[in-house]
């Protein structure tokens, strides 16, 4: 006979208002196997937990049922309490008589009866609970950081400085991300490259950071503490171990007029190129789509010129494997495309702004390049169509963002700030110019942010109109921008020389595929999901995988960096233990009865089941079987449901327990 203690919580008024806790305790104490039943105002409080501990000792309880709130809330609390009193923590069950009962019912008698039934179920389950031990897994103390923008850089440096090795995978030829292309940064207007490039160099030179540039994550296997990552190193056609970065190759390359990705098409580059002078690694890459040698076996000048013999036109993609114990995803963002083609049917594009076909209608990142001292115009403000200095510039915020009709209801958060910055920097370059800003609301929450926007308006004379622009047309070489000033209640027409669209921030291309490889969730817009928006902001639902930066939601540099350090500290916490503990409530396969049909293997969403062989101690083959990898199993129970031979079972929720619970009710 079991000796079960039942503790019924009032949860202040939350439960006791609707459930008659005294009558309940009386009734429950009569259930078979229940040694004692009592109620208490807050079982989760210190004295409440002390009561549980005392009773475990005094009554020699062999299982405990707490009837209170959701196990999500307090299961861990009560397991710890039980453990302190010497009871195996997996012999604690909870009956949720708050969310499942008192909060959703009015009738006291019926609610009390239902609470009794819920407790009866948990008592039945507790009778059959096994003593379980947490699973221990070894940890590889090395981290993978995917994406080398400012967030990835920060995370990598923090982890490396904490003493652990880091593998960084960046898909572009250089790390740096968007920040490397920005001009000056709000709210302090420090030069973006000046503050970023030293950090990039640190990554490149750090003894504990191994950088794979121009590479992508191909495959992810394993689980927290023990991931095996396959990395695809894309063919670069330049052996970066031989290359000295002298620059002879790109100066000799005759194909110099390819649109530069780094300048968002505002500048040009050769077919063999370093995306920008401060690139890390400062080694070129050949663009196979335009190189004459690769396309039609022509040219080859760079090879002849290269003294180091680093050019290799026969280069191919290479796959390499790295073992790591934790992963940080920092893949950043891209902008809503202002062109006609959209990558999702739900995005409508902006025909009213000419779908970006007017040469002088550009997006905000392109404008950053025009402002940047290292940009295609060396920081002299020239408009794309004819190189003239624009005297009237219109900035339109919320292009894509906050607009259900265009497909994105969310606020991109940073555009108000960088638009104010743009207006300001423009005025600093063109003293007799006028900036016009059309906005919906000015969202400038942040340290020094509101003051920054006021400066753009008051000191630098930017004209702010609260209203949308309905149409941009081109007339006599001017962009005629028609909109509304809803505060003044008048329509406004501005004849502009340049229009800058603050396009919405969206997650980087390919993030969904990457998330699937990592078993990380993402929202309808593709932003990666944190496991709790408040309390677990950098964790994901995949153990050992963390997120930071703009891949999780639109954010600015300070926030990206803060989040990156948070992710790094979570990695350090993961690596701090000798072994990792995992909950033991996972599936197991009875290898005696398994018929090796592998229905479970196909059904398992976590790829946690493998094909295995049963052999005698001498190594003689007996049979094939399915086997659960305890490191990967998340205890969802899908295998139990599909197993035709009833060989799969789930610890902590065995079939026997479920039958016993059902039988107790009928």
């Amino acid at each position, binding site marked *: 006979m079991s000796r079960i203690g039942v503790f019924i919580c009032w949860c202040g008024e939350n439960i006791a208002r609707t459930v008659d806790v005294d009558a309940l305790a009386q009734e429950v104490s009569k259930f078979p196997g229940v040694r004692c039943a009592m109620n208490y105002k807050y079982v989760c409080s210190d004295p409440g937990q002390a009561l549980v501990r005392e009773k475990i000792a005094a009554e020699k309880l062999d299982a405990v049922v707490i009837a209170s709130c959701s196990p999500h809330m307090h299961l861990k609390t009560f397991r710890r309490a039980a453990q302190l009193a010497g009871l195996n923590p997996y012999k604690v069950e909870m009956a949720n008589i708050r969310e499942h009962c008192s909060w959703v019912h009015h009738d006291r008698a019926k609610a009390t009866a239902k609470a009794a039934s819920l407790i009866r179920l948990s008592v039945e389950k507790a009778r059959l609970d096994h003593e379980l031990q947490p699973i221990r897994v070894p940890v590889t103390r090395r981290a993978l950081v995917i994406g080398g923008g400012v967030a990835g850089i920060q995370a990598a440096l923090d982890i490396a400085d904490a003493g652990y090795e880091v593998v960084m995978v960046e898909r572009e030829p250089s790390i740096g991300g968007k920040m490397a292309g920005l001009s000056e940064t709000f709210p302090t207007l420090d030069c973006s490259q000046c503050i970023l490039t030293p950090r990039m160099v640190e990554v490149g030179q750090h003894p504990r950071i191994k950088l794979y540039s121009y590479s992508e994550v191909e495959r992810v296997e394993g689980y927290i503490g023990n991931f095996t990552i396959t990395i695809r190193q894309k063919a670069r056609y330049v052996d970066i171990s031989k290359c000295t970065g002298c620059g002879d190759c790109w100066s000799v390359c005759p194909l110099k007029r390819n649109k530069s990705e780094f300048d968002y098409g505002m500048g040009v580059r050769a077919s063999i190129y370093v995306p920008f002078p401060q690139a890390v690694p400062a080694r070129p890459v050949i663009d196979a789509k335009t190189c004459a040698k690769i396309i039609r076996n022509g040219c080859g000048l760079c090879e002849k010129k290269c003294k180091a013999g680093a050019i290799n036109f026969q280069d191919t993609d290479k796959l390499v494997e790295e073992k790591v114990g934790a992963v940080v995803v920092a893949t950043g963002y891209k902008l809503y495309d202002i062109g006609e083609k959209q990558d999702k049917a739900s995005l409508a594009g*902006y*025909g009213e702004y000419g779908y970006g076909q007017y040469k002088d209608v550009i997006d905000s990142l392109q404008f950053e390049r025009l402002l940047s001292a290292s940009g295609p115009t060396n920081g002299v403000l020239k408009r794309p169509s004819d190189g003239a200095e624009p005297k009237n510039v219109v900035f339109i915020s919320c292009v894509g963002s906050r607009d259900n009709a265009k497909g994105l209801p969310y606020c991109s958060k940073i555009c108000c700030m960088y638009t104010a910055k743009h207006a300001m920097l423009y005025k600093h370059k063109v003293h007799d110019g006028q900036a016009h800003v059309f906005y919906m609301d000015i969202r400038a929450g942040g340290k020094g942010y509101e003051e920054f926007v006021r400066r753009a308006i008051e000191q630098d004379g930017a004209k702010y109109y609260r209203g949308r622009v309905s*149409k941009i*047309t081109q*007339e006599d070489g001017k962009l005629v921008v028609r909109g509304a000033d809803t505060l003044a209640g008048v329509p406004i027409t501005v004849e502009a020389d340049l229009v800058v669209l603050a396009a919405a921030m969206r997650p980087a291309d390919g993030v969904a595929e990457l998330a699937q490889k990592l078993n990380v969730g993402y929202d309808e817009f593709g932003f990666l999901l944190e496991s709790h928006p408040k309390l677990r902001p950098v964790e994901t639902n995949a153990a050992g995988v963390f997120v930071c930066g703009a891949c999780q939601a639109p954010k600015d540099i300070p926030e990206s960096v803060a989040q990156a350090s948070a992710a790094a500290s979570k990695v350090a916490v993961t690596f701090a233990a000798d072994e990792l503990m995992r909950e033991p409530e996972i599936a197991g396969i009875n290898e005696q009865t398994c018929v090796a049909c592998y229905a479970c293997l196909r059904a398992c969403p976590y790829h946690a089941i493998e094909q295995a062989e049963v052999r005698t101690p001498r190594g003689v083959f007996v049979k094939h079987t399915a086997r659960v990898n305890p490191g990967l199993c998340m205890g969802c129970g899908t295998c139990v449901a599909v197993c035709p031979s009833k060989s799969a079972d789930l610890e902590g929720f065995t079939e026997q327990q479920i039958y016993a619970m059902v039988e107790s009710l009928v």
Partner: protein
Amino acid sequence: MNIGYYPGCALHGSSDDYEESLRACLRALDVQLQEIDEWICCGATAAHALNQKLSTALPARNLALAERGGFGEMLAPCPMCSMQLIKAQKALAGNEGLRREMSGIVELEVRGTTRVLNLIQVFEQVGLDRLKAALKSPLKSLSAACYYGCLLTRPPDVVEFDDCEQPRSMEAFLTALGAKTVDWSYRTECCGGGMTLASEETVLDLSHKILSNAAAHGANCLVVACPMCHVNLDMKQPDIERRYGVRHGLVIYYLSDVVGMALGLPESALGINRHFVGKA
């Protein structure tokens, strides 16, 4: 091809040149138009400003008449009419109660099953290939600004036709028929519509901008598919020229005019000789 035809008031009144043109043109393409028996006003701008129910009931009766006539499709060449008809149709489709109520009011069972087409869509059904095959005299001398006005593509959720800000469906026909089309900025701007009566100045101003922009982009004519636009741009053009002291001299064609011309029909058969602005 045999389709229903809802002329609306304009095509039987001020814009009967439009009716003449599209009838002649479609006849040449073997499209038979059958006028809906006993059709009534679509409600246009007046009804929905006054009474929501009326603005659904008027088009609903027309839809019911079309169904009674057994028409799967019906051409409503005036964009205001087609928009009102489609709007009513969509309201009825989503609301069985409204459908029953309207059937009672208009004293005819209305289901809203007839598909309402604008003129461009009828040409799309004929198809570019057939038009090209029937092409007799390519429109080589035309450098056309295709003008959609405000209603042909709007509201986009109602009419669901072409790109509402950057439409190109008319251009496709013009190019196929050998004309040049110009890239210009006022494709979907408002011409002033029915404001003539309330504020003629507004109409003159808006239409003047449209004509100027077309000319500035190298157009020697405009092609429209809306009777109201035609009135403002063609009939009012001399007034515009007087008021702004300019000479536009831009011929305003209906889409069916230019298709008809390409098919070899004489201008008189298309009613082009009745336009106010003739060839320069």
